[in-house]
């Protein structure tokens, strides 16, 4: 049965149950499901139980505890956790034990969340199925033959399987929203700059953003409030007050104008089952009081091309640091430093990472830089202008999160371009930097599908409010049980 993080926290605060027994139950569920799901790369039972006992002791003494007190929480293996192996899904970081924690992790600790383990992911967050993990694939709890989505696939799978109510993921071009859709959970990509990137292993620095992956919208609101905010350690984190997002949750949508994207509706129409599901979702939003207006994102069709120049360019620069010198795995090169770099990187990176490093290196080469990288940055300006124009006539956008329900493991591994196309509906928001989320919207072929909502920059509260009204009126995720739970 689906149990939310806020229900767990409230029960712990009322002393109906302890954080320790809650943590033990979560760890037992994870252990029972790991043989079939393989959602984790590292489990942290000792850290989790120590934290849970600390929370219980403070509650017993009548002390104040944080907003996520006792909530079992999984962390994508891209966030540094001090003293805990952090691989980013890569062999090149197989042995890396960070000497510090990411700001997101410190804020989860400060909110008294119980971090139970590090979840599986596509290597360096490059992928849409979790199959690019250097360690093992993860299975979808709603279909064990299916992928959980990616790159935050392990986080999505463990929440979708109801082992834990909350997890953090990261989204560069859809890596929170697509797996959230595939695993029937809520996944939020905040505005770029809303959440600190300090201690997140970088993939594409102008796009990467951490966010909640949770059982319901209220959990996402609580977690976002806990992790958001300015951080002097990240010069791109924005110094704006963090609202109480839970106060923005609403139950009806009267007065809300929702934009339906003409170009996206033309794309989804090629799959009648998907189109029918989204039409029903828009009708449900209308029934709740929203007014639907058509909007246009004329440059959205250039999203993939733009993204697959900008993200690889940034990745080729960010991943230059993995050379076997200071941390991670080293492969010796007969006393020659350049041979060491090359052997280390050749042995340490998987095929998708190599592909993107080469593409990005090329896009940044002198002679091609203006034709590819700079041109992509200019199209990015047009994409952002598209969203500004759309939001002049609506409060938020409702659109597909994905083009299909979860696909089978192995179905797209031989065709990287088919895999890239999975992010068609999520990339434009990443390029524009605006917040977007996926909320469960029903089933196609008995497999979960998410609805995407998107709002202007820093209007996460508005977006979560709309998602909450929709979720409470439809209750798609809690209506069924996953195969693995």
């Amino acid at each position, binding site marked *: 049965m689906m149990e939310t993080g806020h229900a767990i926290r409230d029960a712990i605060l009322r002393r109906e149950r302890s954080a320790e027994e809650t943590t033990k139950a979560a760890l037992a569920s994870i252990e029972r499901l790991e043989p079939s799901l393989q959602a984790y790369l590292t489990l942290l039972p000792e850290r989790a139980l120590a934290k849970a006992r600390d929370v219980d002791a403070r509650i017993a003494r009548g002390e104040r505890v944080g907003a996520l007190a006792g909530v079992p929480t999984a962390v994508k293996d891209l966030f540094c956790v001090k003293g805990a192996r952090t691989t980013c899904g890569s062999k090149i970081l197989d042995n890396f034990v960070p000497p510090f924690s990411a700001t997101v992790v410190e804020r989860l600790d400060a909110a008294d969340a119980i971090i139970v383990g590090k979840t599986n992911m596509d290597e360096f967050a490059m992928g849409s199925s979790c199959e690019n993990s250097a360690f093992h694939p993860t299975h979808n709890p709603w279909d064990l033959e299916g992928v959980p989505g990616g790159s935050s696939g392990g986080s999505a799978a463990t929440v979708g399987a109801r082992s834990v109510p909350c997890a953090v993921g990261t989204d560069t071009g859809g890596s929170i929203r697509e797996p959230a859709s595939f695993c029937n959970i809520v996944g939020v990509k905040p505005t770029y*700059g809303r959440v600190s990137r300090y201690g997140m292993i970088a993939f594409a620095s*102008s796009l990467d953003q951490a966010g909640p992956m949770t059982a319901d919208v209220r959990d996402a609101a609580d977690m976002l409030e806990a992790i958001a905010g300015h951080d002097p350690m990240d010069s791109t984190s924005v110094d704006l007050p963090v609202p109480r997002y839970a106060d923005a949750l609403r139950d009806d949508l009267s007065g809300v104008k929702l934009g339906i994207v003409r170009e996206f509706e033309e794309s989804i129409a090629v799959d009648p089952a998907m189109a029918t599901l989204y039409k029903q979702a828009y009708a449900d939003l209308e029934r709740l009081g929203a007014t639907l207006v058509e909007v246009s994102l004329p440059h959205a069709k250039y999203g993939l091309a733009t993204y697959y120049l900008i993200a690889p360019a940034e990745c080729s620069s960010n991943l230059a640091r993995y050379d076997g010198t200071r941390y*991670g795995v080293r492969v010796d090169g007969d006393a020659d430093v350049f041979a060491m770099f090359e052997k280390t990187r050749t042995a340490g990176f998987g095929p998708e990472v*190599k*592909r993107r490093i080469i593409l990005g*290196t*090329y896009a940044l080469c002198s002679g*091609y830089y203006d034709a590819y990288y700079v041109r992509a940055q200019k199209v990015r300006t047009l994409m952002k202008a598209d969203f500004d124009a759309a939001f002049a006539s609506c409060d938020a956008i409702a659109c597909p999160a994905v083009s299909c329900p979860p696909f089978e493991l192995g179905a797209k591994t031989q065709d990287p*371009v088919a895999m890239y196309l999975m992010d068609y509906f999520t990339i434009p928001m990443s390029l524009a930097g605006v917040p977007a989320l996926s909320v469960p919207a029903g089933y196609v072929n008995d497999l979960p599908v998410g609805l995407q909502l998107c709002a202007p920059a820093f209007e996460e509260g508005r977006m979560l409010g709309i998602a909450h009204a929709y979720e409470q009126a439809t209750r798609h995720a809690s209506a069924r049980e996953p195969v693995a739970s």
Partner: protein
Amino acid sequence: MADVPIDIAYTARLARLSLSDDESARFSAQFVRLFDFIQELQQLDVAQVPATAQVIPLSNVMRDDEPVPCLTQDEALANAPAREGPYFKAPRILE
């Protein structure tokens, strides 16, 4: 179908990667498909459009220069593949 303008072996060398013949051939075929849609960007007239590097522009972000505790030498070196005393150890770069 677009031409693949990439010299894969040369670009891999710049990125300090070595590819097997098999990998080069596979990547080459995949880049052909990728460039099919990357080339779509050439259709757009962007001569007058400014480039966006980052969508939430902040400039000259400063913080107070206050000393705070930092990693000890041992902590900073704990992940070193090889160390010698207080140093990271790597093959010589100068003859």
